[in-house]
């Protein structure tokens, strides 16, 4: 390369820039003409090599997956729309929406406390976040599902005073409710931090300007913070929802039949575990693809209203 460049310069004797680029000729007042020196982009020959290499690897993978009969694509096809699988898929969706919904509501409160001017409230919220992010989700879920082992009866009454209503814990906290509670507490800690990050991203001048026109703290939260936080928190929020879609699989230990535990149960019977895991994989990918499309649409909508151009 360098050799060629020097050669070209050598080809052009007296190649002073001044002769290559004519000095401005147009006198002031007349329309100037550009010198007409086209720019030649650099070539990237190694890119072609990398394309070829990637194509080769993909072809090898496809060939192996399609010709090796032990993948049992026939079993995958057979169970893809199996009733038990679709029932599990539904439970996975319910668990995800429940955990994200409750987690977001609870997380907003925790974020508010965390950012409170009261040091006591802020520190309590920080401990809450530490605890519910720190304890493994699987432990939290099992704790709520087996709550009856600790508290067989739940009663409502005046603290340290008389009680007037009693409920059997096992009836009140059905396994799926226990799972949603466990997942929600964990999720709320993450949501609180996502929201706090969103508020931190808003320039303080925005809040000052809102205060200066006479807005109350509540009006500032709703009119200034909420709309401006949205584009900031959407990516981490959906990151979390995506993760939660698959985290719900921990409910297999609480005898709730979600997508994952449905395929594991079928696999345990017909000993075709791998093809059945492919069935679950397919549906998890469909769910997360749907989420991604929703996220892209929402981000576009928010971006349009915020006109960040």
């Amino acid at each position, binding site marked *: 390369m360098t050799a060629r460049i020097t050669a070209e310069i050598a080809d052009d004797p007296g190649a002073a820039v001044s002769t290559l680029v004519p000095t401005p000729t147009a006198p002031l007042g007349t329309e100037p003409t550009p010198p007409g020196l086209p720019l030649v982009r650099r070539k990237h020959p190694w890119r072609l090599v990398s394309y070829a290499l990637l194509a080769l690897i993909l072809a090898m993978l496809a060939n192996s997956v399609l010709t090796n009969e032990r993948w049992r694509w026939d079993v995958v096809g057979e169970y893809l729309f199996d009733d038990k699988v679709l029932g599990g898929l539904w439970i996975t969706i319910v668990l995800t929406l429940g955990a994200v919904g409750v987690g977001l509501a609870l997380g907003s409160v925790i974020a508010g406390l965390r950012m409170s001017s009261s040091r006591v409230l802020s520190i309590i919220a920080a401990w809450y976040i530490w605890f519910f992010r720190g304890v493994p989700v699987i432990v939290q879920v099992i704790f709520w599902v087996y709550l009856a082992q600790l508290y067989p009866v739940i009663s409502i009454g005046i603290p340290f005073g008389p009680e007037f209503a009693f409920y059997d814990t096992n009836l009140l906290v059905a396994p799926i409710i226990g799972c949603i509670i466990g997942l929600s507490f964990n999720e709320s800690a993450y949501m609180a931090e996502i929201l706090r990050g969103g508020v931190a991203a808003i320039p303080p*001048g925005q809040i000052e*300007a809102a205060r*200066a026109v006479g*807005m*109350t703290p509540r009006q500032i939260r709703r009119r200034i913070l909420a709309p401006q936080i949205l584009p900031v928190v959407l990516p981490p929020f959906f990151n979390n929802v995506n993760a939660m879609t698959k985290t719900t699989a921990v409910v297999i230990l609480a005898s709730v039949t979600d997508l994952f535990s449905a395929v594991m149960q079928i696999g345990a019977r017909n000993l075709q575990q791998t093809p059945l895991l492919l069935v679950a994989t397919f549906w998890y990918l469909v769910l997360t693809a749907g989420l991604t499309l929703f996220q892209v649409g929402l981000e576009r909508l928010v971006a349009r209203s*915020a006109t*960040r151009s």
Partner: protein
Amino acid sequence: MVQSTHTPVREQDAPASGPPAMVTFRNVWKSFGAIKVLRGIDLTIERGQVVCVIGASGSGKSTMLRCVNGLEEATDGVIEVDGELIGVRLRGGRRHELSPREAAAQRGHIGMVFQQFNLFPNRTALENVMEGPVVVAGLPRDQARRRAEELLTRVGLADRAGMYPRQLSGGQQQRVAIARALAMEPKLMLFDEPTSALDPELVGEVLGVMKELAEAGMTMLVVTHEMAFAREVADRVAFVDAGRIVEYATPAEVFGNPTHPRTREFLARVQ
């Protein structure tokens, strides 16, 4: 004239002899941690007066301004705006903090313009101006819209109403910010270095709007580095040094015959 005696802080309003001054600082102190930013500010601004505050960076000018609408809370002393104590209520020799709602209501009557404009980026110029009247004053949207359009016309931006802050130049953004402050029909306007973040060729358009506002009789407290503006428009100039007003007089006196050595030093540096 250097003010050396502090006006006493009284719990009741002084017996009415005409309307009260628009702004009265009574021995105002402000510390950030161990740093004393304001060390006993006394200042009275009459109705319709334009007061420019000048001084070196870090002298406390901006803090002084921000205390007037309660964006900063004075560590000691009080500020009255139109006869009303800002942010506090005096009882038993103590200053009792007002509720957020009460404090917000006071700020609604005091317009403020910031160095960095601080327009709401997700709203158009028109919506920025409408925001206060609609949300704070509860004005119907069509009325707020009409008022906002009039104000944008007044600052020469009628044709930019539908644009977002990002699409406007710094000078245009600052003029929208002035319109936004005026939309609340303030009795007092605070300007915190309104032209310091502007390209030099855009300073004039903002100062022009401010001058018109002053001529229309608005009471204005302006922290600025624009000495020519202060000289031309101000009724009084306050020179602040190390948290104190060391010189307070007409522009002609401050610029022509400064009495304090710190003022002379400062003016020699900026002129």
